[in-house]
């Protein structure tokens, strides 16, 4: 298969993409010609894409298309994978995220992450939230910070009377909102979510989606999801990734096929591959 240029409506990503409530005016991430390999095997190739401030940006695509690999580039999680190599450029507010003087720990404070399976610490609800701020020396007004953060994550009313109880006693959906609260506690700029609702029941999923809608006014959110309707419901922008076979037969890697406003992707996609994927005509 020939490598084709992805349909990216970058021209619209500036002023035109700004929502009526003013979100999306600034660029948070600028990705240029990004290629990621694991032990020499290319997993994702040649991605160019911008992420706008206060937008919810969804990455969709079949298994193996590199969307999780890609989201992990935004807070340097791939640094933790032995043999991982990231080439190209990821600018965060115009600064090279992979620059020599950049501290990955500071990157992960500003750019928080929530994973597929809720992973609270086996500690109290309070301590789960207070953990990050304590490590970072944000000890003043900790009680207020915990309350504010839990309110932000729409969990306060459910847990305010049992803050000292073990977080593992919460339901799956509550645990996931706790993990979102934990990410919010250190005042990040961006929240990355890697399939945050795929292990949850529909009611918990709706709560997470409602939460995403609330949080986008203050945070920039990037979400990987297998659930296309979820992308359609929550995202301002959607990027579709697909798998491409290498011409020399040496394997396959992920590519960005199309990146556009979510409404466009789900009503009139520009690329046949996107059309086939979103309409379920793949395979």
């Amino acid at each position, binding site marked *: 298969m020939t490598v084709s240029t992805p349909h990216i409506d970058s021209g619209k990503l500036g002023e035109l993409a700004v929502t009526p409530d003013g979100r999306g005016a600034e660029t948070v991430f600028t990705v240029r010609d990004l290629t990621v390999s694991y032990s020499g095997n290319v997993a994702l190739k040649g991605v160019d894409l911008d992420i706008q401030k206060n937008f919810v940006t969804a990455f969709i695509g079949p298994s193996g298309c590199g969307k999780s690999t890609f989201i992990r580039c935004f807070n340097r999680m791939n640094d933790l994978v032995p043999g991982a190599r990231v080439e190209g450029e990821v600018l965060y507010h115009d600064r090279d995220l992979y620059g020599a003087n950049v501290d990955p720990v500071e990157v992960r404070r500003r750019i928080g992450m929530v994973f597929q399976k809720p992973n609270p610490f086996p500690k109290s609800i309070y301590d789960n939230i207070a953990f990050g701020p304590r490590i970072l020396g944000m000890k003043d007004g900790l009680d207020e910070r915990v309350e504010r953060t839990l309110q932000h994550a729409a969990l306060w009313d459910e847990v305010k009377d049992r803050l000292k109880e073990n977080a593992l006693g919460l339901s799956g959906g509550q645990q996931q909102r706790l993990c979102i609260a934990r990410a919010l506690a250190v005042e990040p700029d961006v929240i990355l979510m890697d399939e945050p609702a795929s292990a949850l029941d529909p009611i918990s999923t709706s709560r997470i989606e409602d939460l995403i809608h609330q949080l986008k006014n203050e945070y920039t959110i990037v979400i990987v999801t297998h659930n296309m309707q979820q992308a359609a419901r929550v995202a301002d922008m959607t990027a579709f990734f697909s798998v491409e076979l290498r011409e020399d037969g040496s394997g396959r890697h992920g590519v960005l096929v199309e990146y556009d406003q979510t409404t466009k992707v*789900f*009503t*009139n996609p520009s690329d046949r591959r*996107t059309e086939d994927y*979103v*309409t379920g*005509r793949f395979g």
Partner: protein
Amino acid sequence: MARVEFQASLDGLEATLQEQGTLVLRALRGAVDVLRTQDVELCDEVVAFDDEVDARYHGIEKSIAELLAQQSPVASDLRLVLAILHNSIHLERIGDQCVTVAKLTKLAAGLEPHSDVVEGLTEMGERAAEMVRISLDSFSARDVERARGLVELDELIDRTNHRVSDQVLAMARTPGTQEWGIRMIIVARCIERIGDNAVDIGEQTAFLVTGEFHEFTDASH
């Protein structure tokens, strides 16, 4: 091919739409015939026949509601479903216009017709039937160019409509012709609207294929 059931539902919807179109064309031919023959019985048949057209519309609407709820169509599937619903409504309205033509013709049955006006109305009706056929065929073939051609045919209907109006105005001073003339002005207006509805169906073909909705002509046209 994945989503076999879903595709079968979409195919079924399109088939029902074409079926509704065939029924509407039959009603339209009936309406043109009653103008020519002033056959009162045929008028009643055209009126009664509208229930068949309406039943297809309600069937399509119900199936689409179920499809939206169960299959969440997106992209070209979503556009197809929306276009079918629009077209079904347009056809239902064409059916209503045929009913009005038949009712007015029945009311005017005892009055003296004016042969030039009847000729003009028959010409308009035949052109309208041709337009409805083209609109349905081009939708089925996803042929945007053919659909765009409907605009020119619509202009011919509009032109004849003006001619008919002038003829009715000219005969307005002749005693005993006013009632028939007024009724036929409304008949002309009904047929003229059928042409517009056929253009509307053409616009849905363009929407389905391109993903963008544009009226082929603006309202000032």
